[in-house]
């Protein structure tokens, strides 16, 4: 800059952040969990992740007629997040249909990024679940990939807390390792892309509900029941990466807390009283639908505004 004095209209402070830079941060944050998925479930997990991500990016590039296949990166994030919530054993065509569905029905029919009501990856998962339920609930054990049931179906005593924490349990590719997910989410916290409110409300509510409904057999047993519900299934992935999706979650501080608590409440209601073993997907989708309402009702008062 050779001129000393620049005269311009506001805004004077500009962020270097762009949609693409945020999406790259999210991809980096997803890397530990993706790596954990590949370590635990091997080649099938890697193939599924590549298929969903590539099919999502190609679909988006075709719809938007963009030459650069990566674009703003949001399609890659949606595709990778979808793979995270698929079992490692899904057939290749299911992964590809999922990637296409996430972009077409999850996002582009609403008008593209920023306009979608629901989390695209979860929309795709819900549609796949309604279409090919047997493929979508075909769980396998880590490493030897033998057919197995998930911790939520088996109950609390089937796996140790160490296994639950590092992720050596049957489940979706990216949801099993709480440790890797927390590591990745730490990066998003550090960059300021997510706040504690949604994950905190979500995980806190799940813990409290697990604590209260885990059978009244002493404080330790109740705490471990709460902890079990937090670590088993998709709560960590849902709370840290799905519910915090900037487009489909509230923007007000109070609204984010309500959103998180609502997700946790619905998840646990489905887990404890529902017919499905897992409720994170439905909980987040339902709360996504309520997001505009929550935002509307939690608008902070403007400075000097008198309450009605």
């Amino acid at each position, binding site marked *: 800059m050779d001129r000393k004095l620049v005269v311009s209209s506001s805004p004077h402070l500009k962020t270097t952040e762009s949609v693409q830079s945020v999406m790259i941060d999210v991809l980096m944050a997803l890397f530990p969990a993706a790596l954990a998925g590949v370590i635990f479930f091997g080649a099938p997990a890697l193939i599924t992740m590549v298929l969903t991500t590539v099919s999502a990016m190609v679909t988006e590039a075709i719809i938007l007629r963009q030459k650069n296949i990566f674009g703003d990166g949001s399609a890659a994030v949606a595709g990778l997040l979808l793979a995270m919530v698929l079992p490692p054993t899904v057939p290749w065509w299911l992964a590809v249909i999922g990637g296409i569905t996430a972009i077409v029905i999850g996002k582009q*029919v609403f008008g593209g990024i920023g306009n979608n009501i629901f989390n695209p990856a979860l929309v795709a998962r819900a*549609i796949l679940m*309604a*279409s*090919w339920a047997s493929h979508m609930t075909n769980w396998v054990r880590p490493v030897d990939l033998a057919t197995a049931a998930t911790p939520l179906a088996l109950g609390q005593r089937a796996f140790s807390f160490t296994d639950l924490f590092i992720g050596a349990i049957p489940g979706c590719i990216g949801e099993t390792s709480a440790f890797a997910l927390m590591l990745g989410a730490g990066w998003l916290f550090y960059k300021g892309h997510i706040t504690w409110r949604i994950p905190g409300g979500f995980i806190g509510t799940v813990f409290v509900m697990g604590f209260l409904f885990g059978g009244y057999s002493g404080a330790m047993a109740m705490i471990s029941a709460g902890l079990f519900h937090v670590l088993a299934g998709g709560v960590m992935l849902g709370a840290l990466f799905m519910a915090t999706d900037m487009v489909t979650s509230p923007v007000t501080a109070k609204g984010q807390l309500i959103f998180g608590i609502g997700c946790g409440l619905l998840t646990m209601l489905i887990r404890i009283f529902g017919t499905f073993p897992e409720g994170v997907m439905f909980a987040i989708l339902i709360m996504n639908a309520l997001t505009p309402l929550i935002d509307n009702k939690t608008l902070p008062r403007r400075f000097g505004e008198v309450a009605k």
Partner: protein
Amino acid sequence: MSVMSEFSKGIIKENAVFRLMLGLCPILAVTTMAEFGLGMGIATTAVLICSNLVISLMRRIIPTKVRIPSFIIIIATFVTMVDMLLNAYLPALHAQLGIFVPLIVVNCIILGRAEAFASKAPVSHSLADGLGIGLGFTLSLTLLASVRELLAAGSIFKINLLGAAYEPFMVFGSPPGAFLALGLLMALVNMLSKKYKLE
């Protein structure tokens, strides 16, 4: 407007499903198989032509104040006839369509055409209008049902097209899939008609 243009407008320009968005209840409910879509479309068209004809003939006799009850009685008469005819000659289809045949009485396309068109237009135009709108409705219903049957069962009119190894895209056989398929088809029709200036 000539008789011919009254007929042809119902197919694309004023298509009951994709343009006017009328009669969506039977569209979503019975379009799981192509033959149900076609059957429902033909039944509705038959009622629509007859009711348009009679209402147009009686348009100077019916007092304005009680026109809606009069239309409903005329429509209900023809729906009952169609219901009984279907039951007698096509019992299998009748069993599949079930409650949606009697419900043609409250199909808003039929009452809509009666109120907006047949009660004000000469008989020839009303007949052409009923035929055109009915044909457009039948075509859209069959199209939607074919798409859903193809995705959810791999066949169209029960003729298997995708082979035995096809794993059905079950969601399109279910009610949410009806909304999805209708929305996507509507987007496609809008896109194509914009492109080929069919507005």
